[in-house]
């Protein structure tokens, strides 16, 4: 399953189920040396009216990045480590093709900079063997950075790096986590705890 270059290589894992919505990652991302003052992380409630579930999203760094494929200016490059970078400033025409095409909804067009920017996996930090800012600070470790062996030793769940969107199959450098092995259909939803349909027992009745 793992396509890591070496056993010591560190990988980025998102386990959305752990997210507490605190936005530490969003705030820390603005401190990054390559895009100071701008957060490249998306963090949204799924539906605050129903649940406190939030979902953090960094760039998944696809093997064949859709954003780069649809870019009319050839402004989006992938480096030798498989990191998909922000659009090159001289080339980017801020057309937002990438933002519309990305299956994960990651790229943001910075209007006043006329440039698409996105998560670059903190290459200013990772190149110096430091963890990305977001995974460093994440209080619940929904965002996690480490080796496959460290993951296996300390974390529950199965790593997922292949996603199917209609007829498009996307393989990513960043992993997410499933509870069980095998295909997972997100439209149906994950396993729920029995109480979650009725947190306050309104249907059960107090004696139920």
């Amino acid at each position: 399953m793992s396509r890591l270059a070496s056993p010591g290589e560190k990988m980025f894992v998102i386990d959305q189920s752990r997210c507490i919505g605190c936005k530490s990652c969003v705030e820390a991302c603005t401190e990054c040396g390559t895009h100071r003052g701008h957060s490249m992380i998306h963090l949204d409630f799924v539906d605050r009216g129903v649940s406190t579930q939030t979902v953090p999203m960094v760039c998944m760094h696809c093997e064949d990045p859709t954003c780069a494929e649809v870019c009319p200016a050839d402004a989006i490059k992938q480096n030798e480590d498989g990191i998909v970078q922000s659009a090159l400033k001289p080339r980017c025409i801020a057309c937002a093709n990438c933002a519309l095409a990305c299956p994960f909804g990651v790229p943001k067009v910075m209007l006043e900079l006329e440039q698409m920017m996105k998560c670059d996996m903190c290459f200013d930090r990772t190149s110096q063997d430091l963890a990305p800012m977001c995974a460093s600070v994440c209080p619940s470790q929904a965002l996690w950075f480490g080796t496959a062996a460290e993951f296996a030793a300390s974390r529950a769940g199965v790593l997922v790096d292949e996603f199917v969107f209609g007829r498009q199959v996307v393989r990513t450098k960043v992993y997410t986590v499933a509870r069980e092995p095998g295909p997972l259909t997100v439209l149906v939803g994950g396993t729920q705890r029995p109480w979650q349909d009725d947190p306050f027992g309104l249907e059960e009745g107090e004696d139920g």
Partner: protein
Amino acid sequence: MARPPQTEAELVARYGPHVNQAPPGGWNAGLDGIDREVPTHCCFCGQQCGIVLKVKNEEVVGFEPRYDFPFNEGKLCPKGVKRYLQGSHPDRLLTPLERAPESPGGFRPIGWDAALDRVVAEIRRIQGAHGADAFAMLSGVSLTNEKSYLIGKFARLALGTANLDYNGRLCMVSAGTANKKALGIDRASNPWSDIRVADVIFVAGANVAECAPITTSYIWQARDRGAKVVVADPRVTPLARTADVFLGLRPGTDSALMGTILHVLIARDWLDHDFIAQHTEGFEAAAEAVREYTPAWGARVTGVPAKRIELAAELWGTSRTGMLLHARGIEHHTKGVENVLACLNLGLATGKFGKPGCGVSTITGQGNGQGGREHGHKCDQLPGNRDITNPEHRKYIASVWGCPVDDIPGKGKTAQEIVNAIHDGEIKGLLSICFNPAVSLPDTSFTAAALQKLEFYAVIDFFLSESAYYADIVLPGSLHEEDEGTSTSVEGRVIKINAAVKPPGQARRDWEILLDIARRLGKERYFPYRSTREMFDELRVASKGGTADYSGITWERIEAENGVFWPCPDMGHPGTPRLYEGGRFHTESGRGKFHAVRYRLPAEVVDDDYPVWLTTGRVVSQYLSGTQTRRIGPLVEQYPEPLCEMHPRLAERLGVRSGDVVRVSSRRGSMTLPASVVETIRPDTVFIPYHWPGARAANQLTQRALDPLSKIPEYKVSAVRVDRVGPGAVPIDARDVGLTERAR
């Protein structure tokens, strides 16, 4: 006459809160040429996360995760990430201020000598005319151990007043009182690493994800090993969302829930009989008290389905190890102490003390809530957690202080009682530091009326807090990063706070201000300190032999060992991460004491006029009364104003849609604010966070009812009515603008 000299709008225009958005010089100033990196800790909550502050040109310009500090290993909540923006802030107080109604903003700058002479003259005048206790002091536990110790001594020996108390009175006193009664010591029972090895984690009245965010990672590490999580809360908090069992109880019914669980443990014989026999006392009376508390009864009182209560009892009773973590949700009650005692009963009944992964612990809320309360700015305590009414304890502290024992005043009033006495005219003068009662005490109109009655009020603070609006003299003190000392974290771990920069302008370190006042009061002989380190070394001696014994702890040991857990009675002692090992408690008998806890109603209950329960609390991006966090732009943007959370069933009955403005009224006052209609709160309850002042203060609605023992106010239960006022401003959904972003 301590009245706000101007309108609130004029004060806000001059003194803020304005929001700091970017580091000094702006985002483009970059981080090249950092002069130094200072390892220290966060200034906010009791987790006391390690953090590295970056300093350039004598300003804090950023942070770096402190990976090598074992508690948080680099992790930070958003408050920690952005805390550095409290430095180099436009609202920072740089000179002493004197009330001057004719001046713009209502205050005018004056020199230190004039300011301190005025303070001392007023202390002398008021105490001369009305007695020593007519001048009170209110303090706070964002202060280091050294400053806490100094303030305890300053109030008793320099001011000579009994009336010193602190804002921990609004925080962990219920837990402290209960822990002392049942276990003999006021400290979390375990190091947080024990959470990782627990098989069940029972979180009662603690919004861990928002108020102690780093603790979330410990709970998840336990779950990675297969641990189960039980959460009791009137709201489905972000951690509760993932719980194995959720107990969505009615506000104010915690002791009924815990009593029912004890009833089930007894009925199903999920007890540790050996532990009960060998290490505890009082089981029979505790069992008798819950004899009638069947699951059906518990369900009727708490609103939690009976089967869920039984399931929670089964998880707690049949798991080999377990940790019960509680916080203000069960402690901010007129029965706060009883609620904690009911939790401790569950630990004692199942033998869950003194072993890895076993314990019942409060999650202390404030930065130095733990250390601050041990060393003397609590009205009933002397250093080392000593009792101010105990002759032996007084004698020992008098010997350390070098004063006649009778010069140490007796037990004083608690924080709310001090404000009540100000309102009654009994207390005429006040000095406060690190406490913003105008926002944080219940019933804000009462607090405002009290502060206006003061003949003289002096405030030491770094920003003009809403309480300082009422001050006659404001003395500019120091931020956390401008002084060094120690703090004691949620775990009972004593850690080192390092200074990154010096106070700006004419601002001074808090302790230097207090020493100067003491000198002017003619008491310099008791305060010969040239550094906070000298205070710590005296504190070590003063704490020796007390339950909170720091005598074996030095600054060097703290740095070398990443903190030392008290009690640590000598230099060769390794410190005490886990209390009660071998079932040895610190009570006189050495046994853990069960208490008979019978459920009783909260001070106020819903009725036809006020039919909805109100409970209050915090959000992750704000801290306490917001003096700091309401001045940090990115934190304000996360949650700019209070919202009233309500269930769709209640909203439908009221004709309210999410975003509508509602009026929430209680017997104390009313406020209008937008509604947030969510299925994550009980339909009979609304929730409002309390971080804001004035018309946005949730404490306009809360009441001054106190726990009879801990004197904590009942913030968590009020009766209110809710009415729709009208539509709110057009809501902007962040997701609609997520595709593009305007550069800041």
